[in-house]
């Protein structure tokens, strides 16, 4: 969908296809975690796939992506195959990290500019700004997109990155997935302002609030922000309002939560919204293919060998 000239309809179809694929992936992973468990934690992104895919659909293939820890929508939308993603999750040699990831993943794909993830929240603020500084220096015309949660917005790295990126007019776009929770902390109790985007003026950059359940709207504002960045006008802070449907990690019983949305009733479900404009039979066809793709990839990942101990000594230094 990044090639020039697809129609609006084509774009929406492709966004739908990716979102629904990730939805099936979410369900498949949950099933696995409930039955088998695996190491680390799985942070489900169900219900947030729409904004992830919508935003990433606005990126060019060469643009850089720093994703957040909630789900796989970002990476899949950026072109990564499901099998290496599942492989990471399951600690398989075929995972994109070659077996060093498992559960909570640090998947990456250098060729697709999926840049990986740190375990400490907020480190991608400064890293993303630095990647954008490299693009500015090289004049490669690339834009860096950084996803983060409402909780991560509290880290000081945000401030250091945002000030410098604004002053240098770095080509970076920050997308906050505000799902209202940071683990057990309600956003409303940890933010003095209504929106994360209210912090943008402090940095002299645009702050945009968008309905995160509306994938195409997220795509639109992201397109604008990316164009602005590519024109050399500097960063934008986008805040996509969404919901955390499940627990912080799969298995979290959320004793702290007074509004648990535990089932699969996803308010304002991005899958449904995207599906609305699509003819029933087309949609059913896409769904069937997506489900098959997920099943094939998950089975293949499951069948792949686990990494043996020798990998622990690989890749410490180049």
């Amino acid at each position, binding site marked *: 969908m990044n090639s020039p000239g697809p129609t609006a309809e084509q774009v929406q179809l492709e966004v739908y296809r990716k979102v629904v694929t990730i939805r099936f992936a979410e369900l498949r992973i949950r099933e696995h975690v409930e039955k088998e468990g*695996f*190491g*680390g*934690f799985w942070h489900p992104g169900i219900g947030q796939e729409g904004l992830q895919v919508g935003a990433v659909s606005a990126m060019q293939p060469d643009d850089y992506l720093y994703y957040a820890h909630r789900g796989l929508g970002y990476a899949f939308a950026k072109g990564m195959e499901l099998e290496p993603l599942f492989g990471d999750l399951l*600690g398989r040699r075929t995972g994109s990290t070659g*077996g*060093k*990831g*498992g*559960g*909570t*993943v*640090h998947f990456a794909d250098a060729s697709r500019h999926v840049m990986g993830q*740190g*375990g*400490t*929240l*907020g480190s991608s603020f400064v890293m993303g700004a630095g990647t954008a500084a490299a693009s500015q220096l090289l004049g490669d015309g690339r834009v860096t997109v950084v996803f983060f949660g409402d*909780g*991560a917005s*509290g*880290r*000081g790295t945000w401030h250091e990155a945002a000030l410098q990126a604004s002053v240098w007019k770095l080509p970076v776009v920050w997308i906050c997935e505000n799902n209202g929770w*940071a*683990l*057990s*902390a309600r956003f409303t*109790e*940890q*933010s003095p302002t209504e929106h994360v985007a209210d912090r943008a003026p402090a940095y002299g950059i645009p702050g945009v609030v968008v309905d995160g359940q509306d994938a195409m709207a997220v795509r639109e504002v992201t397109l604008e922000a990316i164009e602005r960045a590519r024109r050399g006008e500097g960063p934008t802070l986008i805040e996509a309002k969404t919901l955390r449907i499940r627990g912080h990690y799969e298995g979290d019983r959320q*004793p*702290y939560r007074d509004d648990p949305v535990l089932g699969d009733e996803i308010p304002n479900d991005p899958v449904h919204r995207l599906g609305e404009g699509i003819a029933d039979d087309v949609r059913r066809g896409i769904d069937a293919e997506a489900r098959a793709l997920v099943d094939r990839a998950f089975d293949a990942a499951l069948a792949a060998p*686990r*990494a043996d*101990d020798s*990998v*622990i*000594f690989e890749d*410490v230094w180049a």
Partner: protein
Amino acid sequence: MSAAAATTDRVIGYSRAINEALAEEMRRDERVWMMGQDIGRLGGVFGLTRGLLDEFGPMRVRDTAINETFIVGGAAGAALAGTIPVVELQFADFLFTAADEIFHKLAKWRYMHGGQFTMPVVVRLPTGVVGGAGAEHSQSLETIAMHVAGLKVAVPATPSDAKGLLKAAIRDPDPVLFFEHKGLYRVKGPVPESDEHVVPFGSARIARPGSDLTVVATGLMVDRALAAAEQLAPQGIDVEVIDPRTLVPLDIDTIVSSVERTHRLMVVHEASRTAGFGAEIAAQVHERAFFALDAPVWRVCGTDTPLPQDPDLEQACIPSTDEIVTAALALAAI
């Protein structure tokens, strides 16, 4: 303390022991309070602070945003103003997101200002490898705290020590980094009933007396060293296992006198080998007991690698009981 419980001891978990220490000290001294992420409503990511919000209210059990520099730096400022903050970082690794606050502010404020202030802060640090938490959620970083003067460092290995050392830490006027091992949270053991079960810093525990080889181990490694000792006993090697319990201050005397009897020492730790605290213990023992040693001090340690995000692979990065046994056999044979 031997495995057999004294009559007044209950058998409780390491987590529960920590939770009791917190509650008792907060009851004892109104100036004690806590802050950290998710410690209130949730009771902490590892459940260590459960029930404390209910008993002590939201002003003494405060949920912060995701802001480690505030959690630690704020604790420093709050300590200067007459309170005793006991703060939690969700993972010990996060001391790197508050390193200026820990290694500069906590460690040096008193010194830089000519002793005018005290800095009674406890930073609780869930540490070590368990369950595949990955390279930035599993490290054993206690050596760094040992290298920077001004901090005290506790590394409890049993429920009893977890409780007694934490109570000592809270009563200590100096900043304490309290490394609780995540892999021990569910381990149970005897803990004295008393409210005054305070384990002084700087006194090592002889976890198992022995005559042929001294093994110094901390945290999760104490049990593995003890298990190794049981395997070695039938092979004629009687291992003495010493748990220093605190690294700062370090009870080197107990270690040295043990080595003077056994003539051999092995240090076992989960932290990376290179420049880990095993090197310091080895260096000190060589300095003080060189001529009593029949062989060099050996170290069995974590690998010099980051930790992979996989529960099996990460175990391959830290010493197993088997490795300890194998090394002990080889060392005893020198």
